[in-house]
Each structure stands twice: as C-alpha cells, then as structure tokens.
C-alpha cells in the first residue's frame, strides 16, 4: 500500500495540473487507486496545509468536493540558464570581492543572450 505522504504528493501533482477546472474528489481517488476514506483525509490535509481549496458540489445526486490548486507549482525555468545557479564560486562571489557579479563574464554573456532571445521573439518590441 502506498504511504500517505506519497499519495499526498501524487494527489497534489494531479490537482496542480487541473488548474482552473479543478477535479472532483471522487475522480481523483479513482485515478490514484485510493479509497474514498483515505482520499478525503488527504484532501483535508492538503487544504489545511494551504495547497488546495475544496468547494462543495452536487454530482450524480450526491454531495462531493471539487478540488482546486491554490498555489502555482514552483518552477526553476526563470533561472535555469543563469550561470549563478551552478557556479562553484557562488559562495565567494560578492559585490566587493575579487570574484564579483559586477565583472563576471559568464553573467555578461547570459545577459547578452537574454537580449538576443528578447529580440528574436516575434511581436515583442
């Protein structure tokens, strides 16, 4: 049997993907092959942690909940190619040090690449 935290993670991933449409609680547990008892407990837990919001909905003559993601999943895309991310000098790098973002050529190249990318996007002024 999968552990509760694993199910929680899977459930949250699934709910995150539904964005504005949300997902019916009953559909989600079918998808994750969990029992409804286990499912509703996880939904409450996720709601208490502030990850999702639950809204009551009448479905097939029975009351259930529709689950909506509350938080955008964290993404690394905005910094993915930034040289500071994997820089081995990061700890020693500071404004007044010998190694500094001010004179870092890798950072300059990255900024210039960003300018080129921006220029190559059609319709972008």
């Amino acid at each position, binding site marked *: 049997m999968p552990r509760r935290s694993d199910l929680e993670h899977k459930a949250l991933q699934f709910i995150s993907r539904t964005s504005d449409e949300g997902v019916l609680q009953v559909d989600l547990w079918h998808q994750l092959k969990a029992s409804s008892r286990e499912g509703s407990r996880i939904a409450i837990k996720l709601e208490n942690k502030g990850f999702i919001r639950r809204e009551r909905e009448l479905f097939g003559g029975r009351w259930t909940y529709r689950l909506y993601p509350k938080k955008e999943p964290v993404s690394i895309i905005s910094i993915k190619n930034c040289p500071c991310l994997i820089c081995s000098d990061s700890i020693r790098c*500071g404004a007044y040090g010998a190694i500094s973002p001010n004179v870092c050529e890798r950072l300059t190249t990255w900024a210039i690449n960003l300018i080129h990318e921006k220029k190559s996007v059609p319709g972008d002024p």
Partner: protein
Amino acid sequence: MVNDETLVKVAETLGEEDAVEIILTLKDAGEITDDQIANETGIRLNFVRKILYKLYDHSIVSLRRSRDQETGWFIFHWKLQPDQVEGFILGQKRNVLGKLNTRLSYENNHDFYYCGTPGCKRTPFEEAVETLFKCPTCDKPMNHFDNREVVEVLSEKVTQLRKELGEESAAL
C-alpha cells in the same frame, strides 16, 4: 510542491543527463541503494554516488545507513525528498536575485567603453581613462558602450524573481 518536469529540470541543472536518470529511478523506487541505481541505469557506481551526494548536499535526497550482516559493510539507502525541492529552488532564486541586484546596481552606476572585438571585455570609465581609452587586450580604441539593454533585461529578471518570491511589495 513541484511537478515531475521541474524535478527533471533541477536534476539537469545539478548534474547533467545522468542525474535526470538517477532522479527518475529514485522517484519510482521509493528507497533504493546506490548499487541498485547503478544496475538499473547502467551508470557507473562512482558517478551514481557522486551525483547522489550532490543531491544530498541540497537535501533533495535523504540517506539511511545500514550494515550488511555478512560483510559488515555499510549499505546506503537513498530516497527522493520531493518536498525539499521547492526549498532548494526558492533558495537558489534568492541567491540569483542577490547577484543580479548587485550587478544591476553596478550597471546603473557605471559608464562602459568597448572596442567591439569579440572576446574583449567592456571597461568601466574609470579604468578606460587610465588606458587612454585603448583596449587593454587588443589595443584598439574603445567607444562608449550603451548598456541600456543590459540594464533592461536585468531589471526585468529582478522584477520577475521578486514576483516569484513574493517580494514585490518589498521592492517598492
């Protein structure tokens, strides 16, 4: 919480293609030993361990140690901690934001001169005066370099990161 796509991107950032395979194996396996990962992925054991320790340094994987009853050697059991990935990404974003802020303020407060030769560096005014506006690398004359575009992209990135970190109000 992060999705699988982000997990893969973090792995790519930290340790090339092999790290992606290792993270995907860890994700499916729950708890697994380094030996098993090497067997499943075909990646050399020492490289598997190197990547695992790198991931461990960032708390993306956890480690449990047990002793082999027959040989007496330690066995290391590894487990992916997807919950920690969010903290790792946010920490990295804060770090990058700090560096970009420093650079942005430097770009805003300096005038640059450049010879136009690929591979040569831009020189701030104070240093360009000392070399009589000649490039210290190729000796060609340097002209004023308009850094407005650099300032613009850096400002945009700083704003984007502040927004992602929920620091918009602090920036105002």
